Each structure stands twice: as C-alpha cells, then as structure tokens.
C-alpha cells in the first residue's frame, strides 16, 4: 500500500478532536481521527456537566438525540469542613427554558455519540491506535506516526487534541512535562440510585438536575475540590486534589473518596446507592500561565492538550469543543491560501484570544499561583466560616454580641486581621 494521505490528521477523539473533525468533515475536508481507546470515550472522564452553547456551529440542534442525562436547574456551592458546610444555592426557573444551559453526561456515551456525528459528516475515526510521534520535515509537522505496521499518516495539518498529557505538544517542545502543582488527579464514582429517590432527595422532577460543588478541607486538612452531579438513575460523585498536595499529605485517592462519601452532608444523598463505575483522570489546572505554544508549522493544539481548563467554573469540555472548532475554522482559511505555515495558523491563537476561552483563562490566570502560595485560603477559611456559622446559629444562652466577638477573635488568631484584608484584596483582584 502507498502513503496514507489526509488533509487533516487529528490526534485524540475527545471533545476537542471530534468538534474539529465535525466542522472539517462538514466542509468537505478529508479528515482522519486517531484514538487510542477501544472507542471514543472509553477512557475519558469528566464530572459530567456539559454546556450547550459551545455546540453552536458543531451540532446545531444539540442536544437533539444526544445521550444527555439531566438538565441543571439548581447549583449549590459549599464550603465544607469535616462535619459541616456553609452553602450558597442558586435555583432558577429560567434554567428550565430551552435550550438548556447545561446537562450532565457520561463521557463514554457522549463521546461515542459525538464520534457518530463526525463519522456521519464524513470523517474517518480509527480506534485502538496510538499516535507515537509527529512526522517532521525540518520544523514542519507533515504527519503522524502510529504504533501500527504501515502506520504513518501524512497530512497538510495535524491537530493535537490528545488530552492533558499531550505527548504531541511535549515532543514538539511546545511544553515540558506536567508540573506536579499544575495538575490535579480527579477520581469519580457513578453511584446508582432510583430515579424517584434522586428526585425526592434533590427536590426535582422530570429531567431536572442539581449540581453541588464543594471546596474545603476534606481529608486531614488538605484542600480538595469535590462535586456531586445528578444523572437520571445515578449520581456522579468525585473529588480532585492537586497532585503535589496528594504527595505532600501522603493521601491516596481512595481515602479521599471514602471520606467524601462518609461526609455527613453527602452520605444521606448517596445512601443505599450502588457504585457502578470507578474512574480516575488528570485535570490540567495550571491555567493560562501554563499554556503551551498553540500552533506551529502544520500543527495546532486544542483542548486539555493546551491546558484549556477553567477550574474555578469546572469548565473544560466546552473550552475543548470551542478550541477544536476554532482550529478547524483556521484550517479552512489556511486551505484557501494553500499555506499551513505557523504564520498562517497563528490566526488560531487570535481567534482564541477573541473568544471566551482565552478571556476566561486570562481572568483567572493568577489563581493557581495565589492558591499555591496561600494554601490557607482553601484549608483555613472554609473551616473558619463553618465554625462562625455554627457559633452564630447555636442557641446556648450566650449573647449574639459575645458570639460575634468570639468569632472575630478566633479569626484574628487563626489568620490575622491585616492578612485577612490582604487575602480579600488578593481574591478580589484574581477572581473579581
């Protein structure tokens, strides 16, 4: 057999790679997607909230027949401590209006469906095949090599959408190995429950659903982020921690998961449930400052491979979809010129800058550093706030004034007044 030649070769059939494939195939481009899993989604993990808006221009009638679970009408945010939480809840009838803002999904089903849309549009997806390196001609990427015999694919342009550990971005020298403090490990269980039990426990009906985001010290004082999302007949419960912290506190993910499941605010929500699946995956949390180069001669990087995750708002898949779409559009413009040099492909970076992707990532760019230098923000404050709430609400013959004084004293002792002011200012500067 001769050379295998495609216009575009995409590495990875996750949201980023597949959205690029769909846009390209719809435009009549000859595109191949190489995926190492048994099928798209077989190895992919996320908490499960997928945002509708990013699908514009990819699958316009989304969700249509897509495998979505519940649409989210209520979001809870909790600051947790060992036995308690202080929370903020937003429920809004507007979230019941179509098109729904977001749905919970299972990636194994969702990615498979998205892949069918790509195949339906004319893209070719090859599973169970690992891309081992980019094929270079000088500084120019001219194709990809796979682990299969006769496995070279030549292409005008390669889109690396190979996820958090992007081997392609690394071997091109666009980025170095992941830093232990820029990546979190997320573990998740899918816990089966009766549909009716879920509706009762979360006060919803039909396909309505609820999300809970949790921050605080969950296990031996180490800060963690956790979530609980409702699916039709199960809840997704997960927890993530920066890898460096896991090592420092000598915590293993199972312990973390077990303590989350045992938390008095969580255990009644999952009581009687049966764990159906256990999943783990890395989350790039370095943000804007850790992003690699986004393009080169004949190559563009999209999605997690380019560290496009907004950890504050648990958004990743929508950034992936959007970046895949923009990479595809950039290719189409380049194809008109017949030029796939870095110069032409730099339009990709411009498009990203103009979109919410870079704007959001920039907005929070100092947050990872802030949290890293000020660990107390996530382990001390949630505890203090929980203690304060408890003090205030417990009726025990002590005057409210005296309680406030004691809370205040405690805060000053634990953190210090000027420090608190500084923290407030820093947080406001970073996320405000």
């Amino acid at each position: 057999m001769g050379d295998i030649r495609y216009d575009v070769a995409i590495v990875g059939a996750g949201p980023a790679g597949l959205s690029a494939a769909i846009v390209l195939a719809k435009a009549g481009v000859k595109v191949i997607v190489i995926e190492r899993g048994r099928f798209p989604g077989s190895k992919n993990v996320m908490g499960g909230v997928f945002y509708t808006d990013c699908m514009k221009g990819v699958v316009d009638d989304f969700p249509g027949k897509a495998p979505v679970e519940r649409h989210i009408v209520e979001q809870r945010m909790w600051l947790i401590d060992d036995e308690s939480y202080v929370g903020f809840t937003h429920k809004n009838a507007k979230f019941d209006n179509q098109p729904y803002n977001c749905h919970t999904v299972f990636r194994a089903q969702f990615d498979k469906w998205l892949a069918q849309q790509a195949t339906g549009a004319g893209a070719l997806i090859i599973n169970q095949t690992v891309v081992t390196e980019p094929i270079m001609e000088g500084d120019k990427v001219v194709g990809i090599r796979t682990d299969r015999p006769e496995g070279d694919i030549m292409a005008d342009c390669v889109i690396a959408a190979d996820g958090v550990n992007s081997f392609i971005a690394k071997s091109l020298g666009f980025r170095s190995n992941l830093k232990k403090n820029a990546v979190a490990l997320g573990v998740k269980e899918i816990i089966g429950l009766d549909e009716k039990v879920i509706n009762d426990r979360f006060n919803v009906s039909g396909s309505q659903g609820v999300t809970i985001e949790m921050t605080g010290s969950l296990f031996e004082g180490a800060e963690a982020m956790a979530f609980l999302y409702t699916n039709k007949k199960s809840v997704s419960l997960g927890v993530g921690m920066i890898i460096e912290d896991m090592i420092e506190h000598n915590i293993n993910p199972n312990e973390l998961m077990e303590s989350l499941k045992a938390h008095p605010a969580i255990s009644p929500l999952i009581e009687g449930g049966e764990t159906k699946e256990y999943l783990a995956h890395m989350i790039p949390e370095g943000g804007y400052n850790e992003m690699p180069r986004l393009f080169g001669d004949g190559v563009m990087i999209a999605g997690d491979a380019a560290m496009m995750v907004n950890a504050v708002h648990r958004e990743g898949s929508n950034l992936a979809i959007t970046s895949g779409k923009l990479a595809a559009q950039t290719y189409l413009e380049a194809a008109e010129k017949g030029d796939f040099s870095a110069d032409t492909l730099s339009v990709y970076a411009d498009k990203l800058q103009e979109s919410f992707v870079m704007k959001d990532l920039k907005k929070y760019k100092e947050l990872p550093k802030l949290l890293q230098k000020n660990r107390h923000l996530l382990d001390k404050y949630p505890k203090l706030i929980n203690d304060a709430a408890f003090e205030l609400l417990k009726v025990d013959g002590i005057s409210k004034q005296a309680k406030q004084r004691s809370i205040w004293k405690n805060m000053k002792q634990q953190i210090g007044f000027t420090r608190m002011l500084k923290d407030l200012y820093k947080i406001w500067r970073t996320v405000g």
Partner: protein
Amino acid sequence: MHILVFVKQVPDASQVRVNYETGTLIREGVPAILNPFEEHAVEEAVRLKDEHGGKVTVLTMGPPQASEALKQCLARGADKAYLLSDRIFAGSDTLATSYALYEGARKIIELEGDVDLFFAGKQAIDGDTAQTGPGIATRFDLPLVTYLIKINEINLEEKYVVATRLTEFGQETVKVPIPVFFTVEESLNVLSHSPLPYLIKAEKAKIELLSGENVNLDKQQCGLKHSPTMVKKAFTPEKRQRGATLSGTLDEVADQIASKIAPFLKKVS
C-alpha cells in the same frame, strides 16, 4: 482458498457481574465485544490466506449492532463480512442458531464460491455451550476438528490438512480432507497488531446484509418457537476435585491405588 469464519458478538464477560440473589447475569451497560476465540480464528484464517492465497469471509448472526464485531474482523484482515439479521431469529438456541448459520453459509457459498476451511470459536463466552460450531458442521456433513491448537500442514493439491487438537487427556494430530470444519482454542496463535491500512479499510467497508429476504429459510426451524432448549435451573457447579498426587516406588504407588479403588470394585461386583 476460501475460508469462512463464524463469529459471535458477546458481552464482555470480564465486565459482567452476577446477581447472586437471582443467579442471573447483569448485562446492563456491559460493552459488547468479539468473542475472544473468534479473534484467534480470524487471525489464523488471515495468516493462512497470506501464506496460501485466497480470501477470508466472516459471518455473524445477530442484531444490527453485531456489525461492530464484523468490523473488528475486517480490521484483523478479513476480506468480506456478512451480517445475518432478522426478527425471526430472535430467541434462537444452538439448534436454531446452527440452522440459521448453515443457511447463511450456503448463501455465502452461492455468492462467494466454495469454502475450503470453516472456522468457529471453541465456544462463545456468554453461552459456553460449544454446540453451534459442531451443529453447523453436522448440517454440512463435514469432518469436524474441535479444540484446534495447530495447523501443521495444508496441501491444496491433494486437498488435506494436518492439524493438532486438544483433548481432555492430551493432544491429537489428525489428517483430514478439505473441506473441513474447525473450532479453535485461544492457544492456536498469538494475536498480531494489524496494519493501519486494514483498520482504515474496515471502517470504510460495507457490511453485507443477509436476512429472510435473501436467504432460503425453513421458518419451521427458526427462532424461539423452534428452539427446544429450556433453561431449567442456573447454578454454580461444584469445584472439580483436584487429583491427589501419589508418591513412592512403583510397587508402593500400585498398592496405594489398589487400596483406594478396592471399595468401589467391591460395590460394583
């Protein structure tokens, strides 16, 4: 040389759990895979084709989703894939399944030419009956070599194959005339990593559809109604006792055996 392989799509047994209260399998959400024995059957067929020339055809009876399993065979190097699918096959047991596959195979012979070697897996990991292959072979009145572990020689001029099969007690090497039917063990070969062009071809290939429309069927032999097998009870079989190892000189061992079987001999006589 034309090789026809019968393949089945099965739930991935490594992911099936048992409901211990009802004794039934929990199949919900379990991904479907190509029955592992057939991976090896197709692998062998493709190797033989590469060596002796010819073509490899695969056939499955199952629902439309079973075409996934066929694609996997094409990715392994099979040339053409047939899906036999029809509502009337629903609920088939091994008797009805082997009948359906026999008729499907006859249609393939009509379309693709005579078959020299037939392959099936030793058994399907969801049913484990190991009856379907022999059922088809019997209907064709073909020599049957079950538990194949090695093809030693193929002579296309003189039309015979020398093959080794596994028995309960050891191995047996047989010389059989072509056409011949094999059911295969996993130890037959080591699976290879298919070349990328095979995978691309498989994704693009068209699956040929067979049904009651284009296959000659005796409806009186199809489906649940004509499947006499009944499941009476499901239970966990008792563990087979491992044999004891006797040691000593020949005479001592002979004595030990004699004293062990003496009580049984008395009972019998």
